[in-house]
């Protein structure tokens, strides 16, 4: 810890221990349940892709057929590989086709049959895991060959046309203009689809569908750019919503580099059932850990609904919880792109110093994490000139507090989707600040009793209060305290009960004989 804020190590340890206490029952819950998306991800890792004539993926068809015959609670692996062993079909696609035509009956195998299905499924899924491993080594090799981003913060730019074939030239232009990370925004509403669309897509709403083929096309295009530019350009997408596990698997298979991955976002902003998404999140994070993917968490979103000063401690609280969940799933410090944002109302006196305090607190609490620093959105008014100044101050906080991933703010936020000139001006803004003040952190030592240090201590104290309230929360059903707290509206002012929201029907408590080869392989150390 660099110690500019002189945080009390005992207090910091207390915060982490409370986060662990709040998180552990959720992990237990996740271990006790499975979801349709976890099972479909397992099938994807075993190599089942493609879709039927109506566009319904074969993994959905097969999953639904298995569930109708034997339920979800045993997992999909044993019934599927038992059917293959019984000679119902020669491969997974044929089995899925026959199953959706109703010509296969699944059973839950026992004894030697179960043993046979178990080892066959593990072999098949192992193939997918090995492919993910190979993709990770390939990334390391390409970074060595082309070189890494020239400095931190990494410059993160978004493309979002809805058409993958339009996204590609835009992404390549953004990389040429200086982006180290390209994020392809997903189509609005994809988070609520309980399937992953198939193939290259050209029609999205305010974004482009996340599909395996779109991932492949964009990664190939950015590999070209990396070669041309002599630095590895990273690709980001979203493993969030109802299909977190499957999208995580596809990201690993197609060598995506960073993934937005935060179930709290789905719970609060998309009304996804909390149990469903915590189960999904744990599996998807295990995949990300294996794939060497950096996750990005969504704490910045709380500040788009709640006040950035009053709710600053909810960001810190969520970061601590996310750190616990991520590490439990096997992610390492360098993979934790914890989120936070520059959203204090500029009309608040000393707003810049408050931003510095919040950003420095995150930096010092998580010294090894590649923090993701998000630009102002809430107080961007359409006055593009004032917005440009605000973005400059945002960049300055990023430089002074050593943020790792900087999402480039657009002065036309809330006005238009960024024009070519908006992006160019925004990058000039970033470059000016980093060139002019990139090393300012070295000279920046807030006074121990000044506003910045005391504000940081105050936010940390409020965080501990909140975590303490969470671990003592309860509901009548006896749910884990964190679920009770989410139901109370503790985060982002939204109340989300554990028995509400989307996707609950895709959750099952694991039976005693549940088996999932992917979980087994991912949890092997």
């Amino acid at each position: 810890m660099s110690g500019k804020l002189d945080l009390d190590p005992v207090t910091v340890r207390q915060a982490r221990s409370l986060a662990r206490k709040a998180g552990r029952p959720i992990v237990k819950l996740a271990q006790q349940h499975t979801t349709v998306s976890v099972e479909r991800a397992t099938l994807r890792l075993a190599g089942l892709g493609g879709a039927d004539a109506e566009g319904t993926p074969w993994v959905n068809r097969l999953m639904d057929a298995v569930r109708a015959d034997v339920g979800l609670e045993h997992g999909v692996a044993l019934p599927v590989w038992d059917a293959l062993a019984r000679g119902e079909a020669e491969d997974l696609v044929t089995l899925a086709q026959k199953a959706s035509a109703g010509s296969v009956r699944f059973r839950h195998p026992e004894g030697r049959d179960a043993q046979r299905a178990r080892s066959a499924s593990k072999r098949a899924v192992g193939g997918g895991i090995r492919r993910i491993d190979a993709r990770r080594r390939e990334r390391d090799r390409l970074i060595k060959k082309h070189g890494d981003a020239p400095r931190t913060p990494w410059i993160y730019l978004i493309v979002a046309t809805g058409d993958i074939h339009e996204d590609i030239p835009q992404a390549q232009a953004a990389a040429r203009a200086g982006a180290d990370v390209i994020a392809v925004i997903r189509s609005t509403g994809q988070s609520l689809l309980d399937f992953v669309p198939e193939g290259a897509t050209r029609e999205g709403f305010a974004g482009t569908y996340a599909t395996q083929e779109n991932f492949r096309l964009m990664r190939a295009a950015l590999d070209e750019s990396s070669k041309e530019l002599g630095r590895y350009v990273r690709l980001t997408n979203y493993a969030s919503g109802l299909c977190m596990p499957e999208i995580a698997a596809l990201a690993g298979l197609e060598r995506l580099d960073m993934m937005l991955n935060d179930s709290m976002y789905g719970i609060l902003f998309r009304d996804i059932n909390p149990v469903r998404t915590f189960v999904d999140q744990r599996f998807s994070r295990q995949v990300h850990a294996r794939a060497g993917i950096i996750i990005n968490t969504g704490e910045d979103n709380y500040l788009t609904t709640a006040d950035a000063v009053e709710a600053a401690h909810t960001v810190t609280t969520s970061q601590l919880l996310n750190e616990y969940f991520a590490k439990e799933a096997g992610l390492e410090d360098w993979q934790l792109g914890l989120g936070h944002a520059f959203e204090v109302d500029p009309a608040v006196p000393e707003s810049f110093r408050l931003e510095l305090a919040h950003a420095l607190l995150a930096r010092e609490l998580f010294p090894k994490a590649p923090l993701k620093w998000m630009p102002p959105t809430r107080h961007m008014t359409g006055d593009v000139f004032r917005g440009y100044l605000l973005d400059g101050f945002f960049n300055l906080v990023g430089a002074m507090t050593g943020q790792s991933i900087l999402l480039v703010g657009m002065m036309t936020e809330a006005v238009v989707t960024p024009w070519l000139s908006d992006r160019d001006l925004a990058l000039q803004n970033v470059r000016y600040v980093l060139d002019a003040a990139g090393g300012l952190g070295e000279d920046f030592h807030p006074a121990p009793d000044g506003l910045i240090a005391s504000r940081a201590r105050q936010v940390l104290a409020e965080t501990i209060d909140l975590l303490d309230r969470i671990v003592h929360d309860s509901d009548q059903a006896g749910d884990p305290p964190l679920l009770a707290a989410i139901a109370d509206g503790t985060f982002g002012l939204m109340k989300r009960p554990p028995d509400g929201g989307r996707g609950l029907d895709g959750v099952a408590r694991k039976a005693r004989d549940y088996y999932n080869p992917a979980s087994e392989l991912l949890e092997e150390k």
Partner: protein
Amino acid sequence: MTTLVRPYGDTTGDGMVQISFTLPVPHSKRAEGAAQQLAAKMGLDPALVVHAKPMGPDYTFFVVYGRVHHLVDLDAVEVVERDYPLLTPKEVNAAIKRSLRRRLVVIGACIGTDAHTVGIDAILNIKGFAGEKGLEYYREIKVVNLGAQVSVPHLVDRAVAERADAVLVSQVVTQRDAHLLNTREMSAAFGEAFRAEERPLLVVGGPRFDEAMSGELGVDRIFGRGTTPGEVASFLVHRIAS
């Protein structure tokens, strides 16, 4: 007294404006000339290209200042005024509290085979749209979002069960006029299920609706492309809680 105005830079009547744009032309003298010509055609006379910067090999960004000679007669300006006041979330909450003394209940759905929840989610989900939070954000509004592919009878049942004050329906798909047929079916079903004075307010939205068709379709209001949650909330308050 005078209702004729022209832009103001630093002297009354100077007519000065500032514009910026990009041309798909590599930066060169010719490109600057093109920018100057465009500004002149837009009515800037004289047009001063004060800044030109290449953006990549194929584009150039310009900032242009210049004088326009156009006059605007304020008396001749016509605007379509919204027939209800636009309220902040705080004002919406306060109005509901004051007049209903309970939460206002809104049910939302995409009806028929339409699976595009983009519109209804933009209005209802807390995430919202265009920088405005959705209706879920309003403390005094209870939102029940039924999601996609909801049948009309189910929608009516839920509206009865929840004692809905308003029903919001989003329709994106327009093949064979599906949005119009679905909306008529919906308004007819609500007409049958409720006495006129007890029927919840019916609101439909979608990018292809004609906002003037509400009477014909039997609904209380149609919202088109670009509608924000705040506009919908303000309308609901205007009709239900004021």
